[in-house]
């Protein structure tokens, strides 16, 4: 890599991600044992690494956000995406979403909410709080593939805008530091898959759902 470049993901000139992109590590949260089994299968088929937990509290513990362990947490694999059920006893998916977005260490991790109920105010509330997307249960393979592509695309755009010229950034209307600045993004390890940033506007988020 050239001096000054901080991107962690190798993007070949052709822009073909499928060859070089690392696997996403997804944390799936659901209190239903049946749904955990299904979402795990859907994600594995979509070539993701999967960790499943049964509650929002366990999810926070896994991430190391429960106060006991600090930001380093129990996991040795960085989480690139969180998929969570909305209706769970204790911490709901919405509560979990809020806690993630309030955390400086994890707010950049995209969170997708799943629910068996198609309640518009609920969907809006989640999107407003920063959810990447909202999936109606039962979740299908097509849904998972779409989410994965969305996340990968966001990651790729992050890396491209870091390493390419200002002209491109201006064209996309994205506010990122210039490649020459050395203080850009502090990633913790070389292997890390850079987490998605909220580059899209709210209206773009909503229109991608329609």
């Amino acid at each position, binding site marked *: 890599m050239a001096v000054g470049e901080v991107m962690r993901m190798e993007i070949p000139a052709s822009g073909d991600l499928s060859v070089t992109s690392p696997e996403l590590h997804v944390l799936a949260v659901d209190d*239903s044992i049946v749904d955990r089994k*299904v979402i795990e299968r859907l994600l594995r088929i979509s070539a993701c690494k999967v960790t499943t937990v049964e509650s929002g509290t366990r999810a926070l513990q896994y991430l190391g956000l429960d106060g006991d362990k600090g930001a380093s947490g129990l996991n040795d694999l960085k989480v690139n995406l969180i998929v969570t059920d909305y209706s769970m006893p204790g911490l709901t998916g919405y509560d979990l979403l809020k806690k993630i977005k309030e955390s400086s260490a994890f707010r950049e991790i995209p969170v997708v909410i799943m629910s068996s109920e198609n309640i518009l105010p609920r969907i809006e509330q989640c999107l407003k709080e920063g959810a990447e997307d909202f999936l109606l249960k039962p979740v299908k393979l097509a849904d998972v593939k779409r989410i994965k592509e969305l996340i990968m695309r966001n990651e790729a755009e992050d890396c491209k805008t870091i390493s390419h010229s200002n002209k491109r950034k201006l064209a996309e209307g994205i506010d990122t530091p210039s490649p020459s600045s050395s203080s850009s993004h502090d990633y913790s390890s070389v292997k890390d898959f850079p987490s998605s940033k909220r580059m899209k506007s709210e209206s773009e988020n909503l229109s991608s759902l329609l």
Partner: protein
Amino acid sequence: MQRQVALIKQSLFDQGYLDEQFMELEELQDDANPNFVEEVATLYFKDSARLINNIDQALERGSFDFNRLDSYMHQFKGSSTSIGASKVKTECTMFREYCRAGNAEGCLRTFKQLKKEHATLRKKLEQYFQASKR
């Protein structure tokens, strides 16, 4: 045996026991994971037996805590939906309506029907999975 498998499956769909979600799950099977649907079904019946037990106990106590009953049924409906258990799902929906209406008699009646549908589905799926293996 393939023909018998196909017939069992067809009747399960024709009679409305299963819906397309079951087929979606079958699509997720491959050579490396040939028993995925049966594994999901096993988890489902184990989990739903627990829920049925909880609901039975709650109803036997005579105190109709509709909120708690509705909460159990929400879980039951959720997992039934995930496996494509169409008739069971319908009974769950009805039960929840009776809960919201505070109709104890309706709950009892519906729950009886739900248990029947659940038992029938269990038996038929057992036949189906057994036939698939021969």
